[in-house]
């Protein structure tokens, strides 16, 4: 146990170092534009993590990030990289909007789950397609999922600009969904809603799935040791397809929750890159659902804090984008260089040889 704890802590070191490094570089930026870093960072952290409304807004902004983080996590555990959460999220959001609009006579108790499930289903299909291409034609899923993002974003953009544009809207948006489809707001005036609780539930479910069930066993072993997995009879295609379907479904749910909980309609270009930030969340959280929860809240807090910082200290909120970028680069570098790092410092790995 003691040992397990130590292992856990040592595995978190890269995340913590990356976060610290990112803050340091952001600090240089602040100094560079001749602002007082202590003012900037106090405003940033206070805005994100102090006060009920600030915290509520942090959690609201964290919700889609936790979910897209989970989406990346579940696929990468099975050895497939879903960089397409952004597109899956857009399609999920759009089709769940359409569902909510089409069945407006249904009561909320039926309409909400149906709309969310439709979002999940569409997201899943959008993720399964590139996985099929990978398995059948050996198309690299990183490239194809990135490309499919553009298809999804532009497709929904067309739909919301033309056939589905609300008559009275000044900007590209669908009609408002019926009231009974709104997710309950938890701490108004903040737009924090039931979606956050759904995210928490999914964190717990996916953690159980990954570490306690036979399906999680399949996912993890296929991702870590494909040769071993096929030798013991796990079907790699089936496992990768189901991991990707699950991943896409979660991204679709993230989109549905943004609509049902936050905007109440589909807005053109509503996502500030939730799908991509989810990758950072998953890398920060070490591909563990609990880590995604923490990482999502951390990045949600930074986004919320950035707004407050801009308001109170008049430092551009783009500072947080710098932090995110540096985080991503350093975390990705750690992942990419893992084999080489091992090559030189095997002390912990010990003799895997005989």
């Amino acid at each position, binding site marked *: 146990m003691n040992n397990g704890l130590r292992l856990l802590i040592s595995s978190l070191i890269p995340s913590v170092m990356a976060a610290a490094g990112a803050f340091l570089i952001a600090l240089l930026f602040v100094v560079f534009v001749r602002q007082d870093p202590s003012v900037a960072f106090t405003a940033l952290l206070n805005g994100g993590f102090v006060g009920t409304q600030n915290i509520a807004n942090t959690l609201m902004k964290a919700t889609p990030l936790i979910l897209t983080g989970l989406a990346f996590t579940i696929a990468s555990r099975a050895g497939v990289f879903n960089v397409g959460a952004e597109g899956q999220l857009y399609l999920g959001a759009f089709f769940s909007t359409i569902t909510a609009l089409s069945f407006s006579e249904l009561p909320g108790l039926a309409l909400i789950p149906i709309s969310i499930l439709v979002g999940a289903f569409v997201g899943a299909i959008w993720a399964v397609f590139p996985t099929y291409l990978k398995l059948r034609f050996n198309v690299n899923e990183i490239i194809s999922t990135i490309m499919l993002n553009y298809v999804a974003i532009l497709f929904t953009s067309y739909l919301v600009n033309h056939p589905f544009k609300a008559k009275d809207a000044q900007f590209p948006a669908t009609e408002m969904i019926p009231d009974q489809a709104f997710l309950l707001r938890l701490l108004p005036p903040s737009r924090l809603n039931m979606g956050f609780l759904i995210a928490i539930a999914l964190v717990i479910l996916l953690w159980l799935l990954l570490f306690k069930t*036979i399906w999680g066993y399949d996912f993890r072993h296929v991702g870590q040791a494909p*040769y071993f997995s096929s030798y013991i*009879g796990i079907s790699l295609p089936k496992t990768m397809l189901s991991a990707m379907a699950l991943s896409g479904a979660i991204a679709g749910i993230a989109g549905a929750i943004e609509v049902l909980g936050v905007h109440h309609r589909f807005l053109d270009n509503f996502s500030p890159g939730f799908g991509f930030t989810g990758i950072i969340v998953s890398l920060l959280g070490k591909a563990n659902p609990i880590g995604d929860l923490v990482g999502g809240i951390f990045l949600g807090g930074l986004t919320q804090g950035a707004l407050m910082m801009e308001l109170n200290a008049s430092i551009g909120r783009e500072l947080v984008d710098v932090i995110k970028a540096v985080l991503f680069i350093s975390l990705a570098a750690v992942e990419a260089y893992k084999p080489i790092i091992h090559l030189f410092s095997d002390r912990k790995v010990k003799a895997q*040889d*005989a």
Partner: protein
Amino acid sequence: MHNLAVSMTDICKSYGKFKANDHVSLHVRPGTIHCLVGENGAGKTTLMNILYGLIQKDYGEIKIFGQPANVKNPIDANGYGISMVHQHFKLVPSFTVLENVILGTSKTRGPLLDKQTLEPEILQLCNQFGLEIDLQKVTEDIPVGSQQRVEILKALYRGTEILILDEPTAVLTPQESEQLFITLEALAQSGTAIIFITHKLREVFRISSEITVMRGGRTVGTVFTKDVTDNHIVRMMIGKSISLSFDKKGFTERKVVLSLQKINLASSRSKPILENVSFEIAEGEILGIAGIEGNGQSELVEVISGAQKATSGKTILDGDDVSHFNVRERRNIGVVHIPEDRNKTGVNISASLLENMIANNYFMPDISSYGFISESKASSYTVQICNTYNVKSASVLAPISSLSGGNIQKAIVGRELSMPRRLLLASQPTRGVDIGSIEYIYSKLIEYRNNGLATLLVSSDLAEILTMSDRIAVIYEGKIVSILNAHETNEIELGFLMTGSKEN
């Protein structure tokens, strides 16, 4: 030059309460090949990792050429002229051989690699020590034997005076091993001290001039090879002598378990990998496959296990055509499999011992219910395998990479044989396993055979094939060239057939 290249005295290393090295001493002369032998888990790798700076000793003294040495990491070790060839090579797979050799050395000026000037120097080294390697090839494309030569070349290029090889021959064919021995002898001639770990006594007597025996974390003693016999060494290693002869009982009535009918496996190249392979294995029979590695044995096993689909032909198991069954469907009707590549295929090296032990039945009611894996059931199942097959591990949750190589192999054997079984596919089942455990694994294989298990045994060790098999099929270029009764043939005849020479 000092008369001892390496002098390790009273080395201690503990993991918790467990003493992996307990006052171990090892003294190696320059220009000699010194074998380090002992049972699985005796502490050989641990001792070498200490010398190479991969792990830190708790106590003891190391002198290199008479000077006290403080080896904190492999870079220090290189500074002292020490190199180590691990059983699992530490090469960058996507680099060329040349790039791997010069990686991390600072012999170039400026930021750019000057491969042209370095190449002749490296070629010269290859020639001097009889290392045949194509420097331009990408490392992952060359066979293991050549990859190992790259490791040795790397060591030579860094100017090694002390070379450690941890079970280098475990992954080599007998031919590749012989090539390695010639290189090592040339190296020793030029003054290098070589420490060589192996479980094969034949090799010990083939190349070493001195032998140090370890047991249970301690040194039993060091002897001159010319003064001892293999029996002597075995007794030092495990405290008793061993006989590798068994009581095989014959069967009167034999039901066929496995029948292969005209199996063909095409390849993208012109020659097929398997061509019209047909044979039968009966209940209570061990069929050995003899052949030089790379003649289709691995693929044959994969076709039977279900990992590869044959291009044509039928696989019949207990009278049923299972040609279209996948791996799991075949496992569920009693096909168990000890794979040839222990670390890549046989286990998930990044997982715990427990997760590796439940690989065959985590989805069955004995381990899980409603999809949830029961930790207590899984752990008592693991403990049971470890007890029956004498697998030594700190705990069931320990990462399997913390087990010694031989213990990992025993764990795999135990895992496979603990399942309901009709047909055993055993590829190199005793690779990297100590003599005591070999005897144990053999006795298990014979016991199951006597109880009716059909076994396909693939091994590059002819002695193993001859002792264990009832019949022997010789494979050459994907064809079964001959099937012989084991007691009517010998190594010479087999060796002859394996190279494709016809008898008459």
